Structures are given as C-alpha cells and as structure tokens.
C-alpha cells in the first residue's frame, strides 16, 4: 500500500506549522507510512470472499423482487387511472345531438282570419237557432212547434255540414 496521491504534503504542512517544521512533519509521515507498509494486514480468506459474493447475489435478487413488486403495482394503478380518464373524457366530450328546432308550421294568417270569421258567423247562427229552439219548446211564438223543430234540425244539419266542409 502506498499513500502517493500527488498531494504536496510539504506545502500543506507549511501553512499550518511553518516552513521550519514542515520538513520534519513530512518526514514523520513518510516514516510512519513505511512502518505500515512493513506490516501488511492480513487479507480476507477465499471462503469469506465466496460467502460475501453469495450474500451480495442474494441481496441483489431480493432487491430486484422488491423493486418489481411495487413497480407492477404502480403500472397497474397508472393503467387504471388512464382507463378511467379515457372513459370519463369520452363521456364528457361525447357529441350531444344538436337541439332540433321546433318544426316550423306554415301559418297562413289570412286563412286563419277567414276561418275565424266563419267560426264567428256559425257561432252566431247556432246561438240564434238555440234561442229559437228554446222559444219553440216553450211555445212562446205561437207556431206549430213540432214542424218547426224538424225544420230547425234540418237547418242545423246543413250548418254542421257546411262547418266541416270549411
């Protein structure tokens, strides 16, 4: 073992103990290193190294299993989140059918007015007939009630037929 690491020990010691003592300090260090080099420490036995390598291998295997477990769980969670996101977004952005505008009905105003006039006329006639009918039933106008009634019914039927003809 050597301690040559390109470090300028003399310069380093000079900053702390001054130039006079720096050389002595460097010499102490070198001689101390020499003692350590003269008595090398024992090394690890081959069986110890084999045991350590086996232990390292076992630790690596356990670690990879531990890494794979959480990783697969994370992937599953991410996939679930993704699927839910896709489903939600599909529903959210799904095209709703455009509101159908109410069907336009062609109103013929003039025609309506004419029909209103007819309706008013028919209503007036019906009121008149009803009033006549009531008078007949009560015999107020001194006529032959039965014949008049028949005549009125025929008249009513005609009016009704005209009404439905338009």
């Amino acid at each position, binding site marked *: *073992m*050597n*301690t*040559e*690491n390109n*470090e300028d020990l003399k310069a*380093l*010691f000079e900053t*702390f103990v001054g130039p006079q003592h720096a050389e002595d*300090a460097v010499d*102490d*260090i070198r*001689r*101390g*290193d020499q*003692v*350590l080099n*003269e*008595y*090398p*420490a*024992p*090394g*690890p*036995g081959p069986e*110890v*190294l084999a*045991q*350590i*390598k086996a*232990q*390292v*291998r076992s*630790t*690596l295997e356990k*670690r*990879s299993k531990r890494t794979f477990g959480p990783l697969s769980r994370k992937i599953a969670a991410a996939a679930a989140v993704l699927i839910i996101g896709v489903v939600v977004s599909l529903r959210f952005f799904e095209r709703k059918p455009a509101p159908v505008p109410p069907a336009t009905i062609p109103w013929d105003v003039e025609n309506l007015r004419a029909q209103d006039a007819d309706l008013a006329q028919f209503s007036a006639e019906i009121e008149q007939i009803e009033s006549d009918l009531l008078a007949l039933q009560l015999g107020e106008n001194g006529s032959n009630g039965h014949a008049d009634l028949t005549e009125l019914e025929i008249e009513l039927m005609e009016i009704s037929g005209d009404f439905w003809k338009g």
Partner: protein
Amino acid sequence: MGKNDDFSRILRGCQAGDPRSFENLIDEYASRCYGYFYRLTGDRDASDELLSELFVKLVLKIKQYRGGAFETWLFKVASNVFHDWLREKHRQTKLLKAQKSRFPSEAAENEQPDIYEIDKLQAQLDKLDIDTREVIMLRFYSQMSFKEIAATRGEPIGTSLAKVHRGLKKLRELMEQ
C-alpha cells in the same frame, strides 16, 4: 480500453444491479477494505463481518454514488459501517459489564482468549486512541488526500493533518521500542 474505462464499466454494471460487476468490485477492493477493518478492530472475525456488511451496504447504496473518486465514497461508507459496529460493541460491552457485576463467576467462564495472533503493529496500534487510529487507517487504505479525509470526517483539514502526524510519529516510536 484503459483501466479507468474497465472500472467505469464495472461501476455502471453495479449500478444496474449486475452480480458479475459486484464480484469484480469485491475482487478489486476486498483486500484494502479488509485491511482497514482489521487494523481498526484487530479481530479477523469482526473484519469478516464488517467486510460483508460493507458490500451488502454497497449493493443498497451504489445508486447514490454520483461520480468523483470512488475510493472516497467507498471508504466513507466503510467508515460508517465501522462506526455502527463500534457503537454496537460499546453497547454490548456495557451489557457485559452489567452481567459481570450480577453473575461474576459465570461471566468469567464465558471469557475466551483471542484465537488469532496479534502482530506487533496491531499491538502498538491498539495503544493509539480509536479516533487517531481511524484517521491513519483511512488515509493509508483509501489513499485519500488530507482535504478529502477532512471532508469525509467533517473536520478542519488542520485537525486531520495534526492527528495523522502525531499518530504516525507515536506509532513509529512505539515500534522502535
């Protein structure tokens, strides 16, 4: 392809979790790291345990290595492993002392002598305080500069320099006795 390229490939392999690359890393650094642990503990069993602990820790931490001098990073991890072991040892020593005071005869029976012969250097190293011993061994086995050692230990460079200087001087004196 140069040695640096080969080593970069090994490191990339380790970071990718390749067992073969870790085996190469173990072959490359086991001896130096073992020496570091042995000189700090003076115990082969403890050194075996610490070396194993170190490489398992490297498997777990290798992705945190972001380039720069690999030895600096490696020995920082090794230093942490040693400190954890030291704390545990202190805790056990306290427990043992407490046990001894409660069951003196039983504890004496359990004491066993160290079966490994301690070399002369180790015997003298044990006379240095643990902090000085550690900084000397960190420099010797990691080949870090004083600047890197100071940064790793979180102390001023002058402190690391003084500890190594005084420690090596004392060690040489002890060895010459």
